[in-house]
Each structure stands twice: as C-alpha cells, then as structure tokens.
C-alpha cells in the first residue's frame, strides 16, 4: 500500500482549491475563452484516489478534470496556459479546459462527452495487459456517466477480462441541472448497480480524503495483484455551477439549505481540523505552506498570461500523426 502523509493529502487538496478559486476569480476577465467546470468541494476524491497510484499508473477523466489532472501530477503551468489558449498549454491551446493531458505522469486525457473515457480507460488497462505491463488505470466518472451505455459496456468488459481498473465515480448528484432523482430510481445506489456486473463495488464518503485514499488503495492493490476491477462510488457535492465560475443556487434546481449542509462538510476544512487536533500539523506550518502554494498559483497564472498564442500555421498541424 502506498503511504502518503495525511498532511500531504491536505496540501494537495488546498493546492487544487487555490487553483480553482483563482480560475473562478480570473474567469470574468474574459481571457480564459473556454468553458470551465470547477470541482470546488470535490477535491477529496481526486486527491485521495490519485494518491493511491504510482506515477507510471494511468488515469482518464471527464469535463470536470482539473482536480484529477493536478492530483495525478499534471503540470499546473501547462494546465493554466491551456485554459488561456496559449501555445505552452498542455494541448498547445487546442484542447482548452475540457481536454487535458499530461502523458509524462500517466494522465492520458479528459474529454467532455459524458462517459466516453470510460471504455477508453478500460482499453488502456486492456492494452497494458496485452503488453504485459503492470500498471493500474483509474477511470474517473460522474454519476451521470453511469447512465450512458458505454459505462455498462466497459464495466462488463473489464470484469470479463479481469482488467486492472478502478472506476472512481464522483456522485455529486447532478448532471448539469438534472438531479439524480429525475434520472435514476430511488433506493438503487449506483455502486449496487455496478455490483450487478460482478465486480467489487463500494460506497464511501467522498468528502473524506482518508476514506477515499484507503478504499482506492485496496482497489489498486487488488488490481495490481491481478484481482480485477473495482467500482468505488464516492458521494460528494459540486459547490459552484455546472459550467462557469459562479455559485448558482438562485436558479432553482437545488436548495440553498442543501448547499449549505454540504459546504459545512468541506473536505479541506474538516481535514485541517483533524490534522491540528492530532498534532500532525500546526497552524503556523500550514499557513506557511499555503502561502507558498498561493505563490505557485500566481506564478502559473503569470506564466500562462505571458505565454504566446499559437501561430496561425499551427491550425493545420496535428491533423494526422506522422
């Protein structure tokens, strides 16, 4: 089992929170000219799950992928430059926020079509088996993706071939504005549905990074040992709007009260209290590190803003691989 100090998990979450809050702050400047899907409030799943992976393991993700990309070790400067459409971006500006990749750390791609990377992630795992490599692949998905046909197709194949995949489902209860109860019948949990395919399937608190980390670790270890796939459902909550920098409780698809209840369960605040109570960190220590992280984020923003846009000739580039 990989061992990561709780303090590190906390700081990784803080870093992601700072990045996303900074994106939300700067977005109204109209310089990031692509949709952004923020996962403020959901950081524990990304950080806890990726902490269970080795750098050479793989992950694929969705439209809400900033946290997954960063948690897997993706380059922050390249991510922000990508949001700013710069040539220094992780896709040279051609992807934007919804298409992130950092192959150097095994983050193989994120796409905005719901569910589409699920079979691709399973295929990555299948490819590693065919090549007799021993990597584990995490497939990040949302609750909405479990309604797509490819989810069922991909899970079936992963079980059939006992592939080293961990499906990490962030159940934040919403597909854009559609709540879970208009999309799925009551009293049928997603992880129970997944269990029907014959794979280990568990539910955990997605706002508790310790829980996410521990459960993912078990799944990753099992996958690495040839034990096949696992499905993990983590309940968590999206604080901000589906797409964009704002809060959107006023539009009426969810109640202010529900939002406040979840916000009171902030994965970062609660972990910080635990760290301080257990004496694993001091307020002073954390303050210093958080200031450093904020500086890193500022520097990355500055890098992105100072980077050049791609030259017009690059429009033609990369149609086909050589």
């Amino acid at each position: 089992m990989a061992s990561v100090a709780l303090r590190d998990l906390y700081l990784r979450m803080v870093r992601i929170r700072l990045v996303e809050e900074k994106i939300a702050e700067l977005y109204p400047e109209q310089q990031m000219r692509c949709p952004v899907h923020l996962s403020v409030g959901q950081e524990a799943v990304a950080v806890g799950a990726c902490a269970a992976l080795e750098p050479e393991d793989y992950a694929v993700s969705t439209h809400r992928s900033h946290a997954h990309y960063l948690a897997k070790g993706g380059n922050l400067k390249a991510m922000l430059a990508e949001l700013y459409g710069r040539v220094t971006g992780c896709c040279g500006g051609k992807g934007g926020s919804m298409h992130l990749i950092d192959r150097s750390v095994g983050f193989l791609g994120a796409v905005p079509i719901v569910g589409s990377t699920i079979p691709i992630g399973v295929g990555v795992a299948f490819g590693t088996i065919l090549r007799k490599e021993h990597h584990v692949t995490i497939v990040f998905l949302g609750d909405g993706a479990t309604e797509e046909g490819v989810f069922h197709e991909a899970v079936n194949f992963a079980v059939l071939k006992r592939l080293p995949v961990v499906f990490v489902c962030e159940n934040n209860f919403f597909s854009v504005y559609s709540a879970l109860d208009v999309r799925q019948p009551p009293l049928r949990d997603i992880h129970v549905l997944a269990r029907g395919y014959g794979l280990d399937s568990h539910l955990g608190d997605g706002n508790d990074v310790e829980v996410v980390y521990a459960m993912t670790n078990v799944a990753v270890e099992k996958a690495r040992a040839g034990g096949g796939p696992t499905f993990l459902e983590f309940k968590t909550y999206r604080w901000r709007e589906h797409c964009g920098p704002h809060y959107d409780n006023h539009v009426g698809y969810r109640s202010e009260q529900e939002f406040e209840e979840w916000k009171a369960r902030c994965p970062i605040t609660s972990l910080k209290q635990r760290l301080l109570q257990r004496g694993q960190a001091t307020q002073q220590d954390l303050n210093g590190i958080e200031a450093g992280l904020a500086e890193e984020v500022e520097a990355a923003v500055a890098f992105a803003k100072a980077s050049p846009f791609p030259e017009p000739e690059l429009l033609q580039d990369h149609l086909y691989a050589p």
Partner: protein
Amino acid sequence: MTRDLKFFQAINEATDLCLARDPSVYLMGLHVPADPKGVFGTVLGLSKKYGPERVMDMPTSENGMTGVAIGSALVGMRPIMVHQRIEFALLAVEQIINQAANWHYMFGGQAAMPLVIRMIIGRGWGQGPQHSQSLQALFAHVPGLKVVMPATPHDAKGLLIAAVEDNNPVIYLEHRWLHNVFGPVPEGRYTVPIGKARTARKGMDVTIVATSYMVLESLRAADLLARDGIEAEVVDVRSLRPLDKVQIFESIRKTGRLVVVDGAWRSLGFAAEVLALAAEQIYGILKAPPARVTFPDLPSPSTPALAQHFYPRAVHVVNGVRTMMGLPEVTEEQLGIQHETPLDVPDKAFTGPF
C-alpha cells in the same frame, strides 16, 4: 511473386502478415473467431494461428469496444476492429468521430491513434436498408479520419497493411460484392499508399471517377462505351480521405469530361464532393456539365423487384456518359448485356442467405 487471389484472401493474408510482423497488432470483432465462415473468409484460420488474445471475439458493445480499442492504442497497441456490416459501426460513431478522429489534434499532437476499423458495405440478397448502406461520405466528412475503399485484391491487401501501419484511425470499407473477385496479389509485405488514386483504365474522352465496387461496373461500362468509340478513363480513387485531387484533376484536364460513380447516395456525398472540387478548381476546362451516377436518395428496398432499380450498374454509367456526350440513352438489350446471374447476387457461387 504475384499470383491470383480472391479479395477476401488478400484481406486475410494482409491481416496474417500484420499479426506476424508486429506483436502490437490485434484483431477484434463480434464473431471474429466464432463465425464458421470467418467473416466472409477474411479472418479464417487466424485465431487458430495467433490465439484468442490476438484474434478475439468481443461483447456486443460496439461503442464500448471501440473505446477499448482506442484506449489500447494510447498505450501502444494497434487494433484492427471488424464490423460485419457498416450499420453496426454506427453504434460506435461516438467513439469513432468524437474520440478517435479528434484525439491527435485536440491533444496537440501528443497521442497517435493507430486504429483500423473494417466495415463491410454493399448489397445483396435482400439486405434492405439496415444491412446495405454505404456510408463512406459520413466517415470521409470527418477530419482526422482516413477512409479507404479498395476495389481490387491487390489494393485490398496493400491498403490494409498501410492502414495497420498508419498512426491514425483508418476506416477500411470493403464491399460485400468484392470479396470473391479474383486478381493478382504479390506475396509478402507491400503497401498501397493511402491518399493515392489509381488509373484503372486509360482513356481520352471522359473521366469516370469511381469508388469500390463501382470501379468494376465502371470498367464494364468503359468496355461498352469503347464499342462506340468512346474511350473512358476510369480513376479508382481508393482513398476518399485524403483524396488524390491531383490525379483526378490531371485526368479531367486530359478528357474535359467528368462522371462520378459512387455506390452511395447522391446528395451531399462523395460524388457531390468531386463535382464541387471540379467546379471550384478546374471549371474552365470542362466541356460539359459533370454528372453523378449514384443511388437515388432513398433507403434501399429489400425486394429484388425494386432493388434492380436502386443499385446502378454498367448500363447506368454508360448512359451517364452518353447523356453528357449528347447521345441518346440505351437499354441493356441494345448493349447486348445478358445477366448470367440474378441481379441480387455478386457471382454464381453466391446462393445466399447472407
């Protein structure tokens, strides 16, 4: 050494060769190892030779399994996927068009997508509208995909090897009626470059640009036209994307006349595209308005009574050319065409039901 093989044997040989040469190549498709007929013979014997891990059946999950193929390609595999009918590939259009076609470009050139998807098109034996569509225009419309349509056993082998060795998603469309066509095929590895057309017959009077099986009907038409002193040049495009505009234009410059023969719908399709290119780029040299010989814009009917009026054949190509030359249309009787087989089968050996 070159010897005569059937089209399906050429595909089989190309696949065998690719599997033998490169351990990252694998073949996947519904019934691929299980079908006793070996997908029209194209995969016969391969699972026995390479085992079920490299020549594999799959769940009935076209979209999901295309994603699996894509994912495996991202970590270095070179999958070949087979669909017994192009219609089943439509279940995978999301993965093909959204994902495979865009992946390299949208990730800034960081990931190659060496993926081949074989789709079988074409008519026969009352296949009706969901087993006979020729959707080359749908796939060829999409940047990032390559689309090839071999018409000869030689090209079937060479284009398949080229497709497998290509680092991009290639849609390989094979017409059901070509599978039993005989022709010279060299032994060993060779490639037919994707994006290069072939002059199937030389001529001075009219350029017939044709795809896939319609190359054969166009060649028959050219023979019939020659009896009346009209020499047609037949250009077998072989690749719809990238398209060899240079060779097509060269031929039209020589003949001044253009007929496009495509076994697919008329409107907004490949034939329309070639006419548009000619209109845009070499308008002044055309001696007559260009013409299209295609399916009518209708779903294909199952009954042979209607199908004979749906699928164009040599006589329709002849009349396309004659009309352009200001000559009256002729009938099959006038041309002396006698069909040795019913119009709904490709050859004498074919007795249905598939």
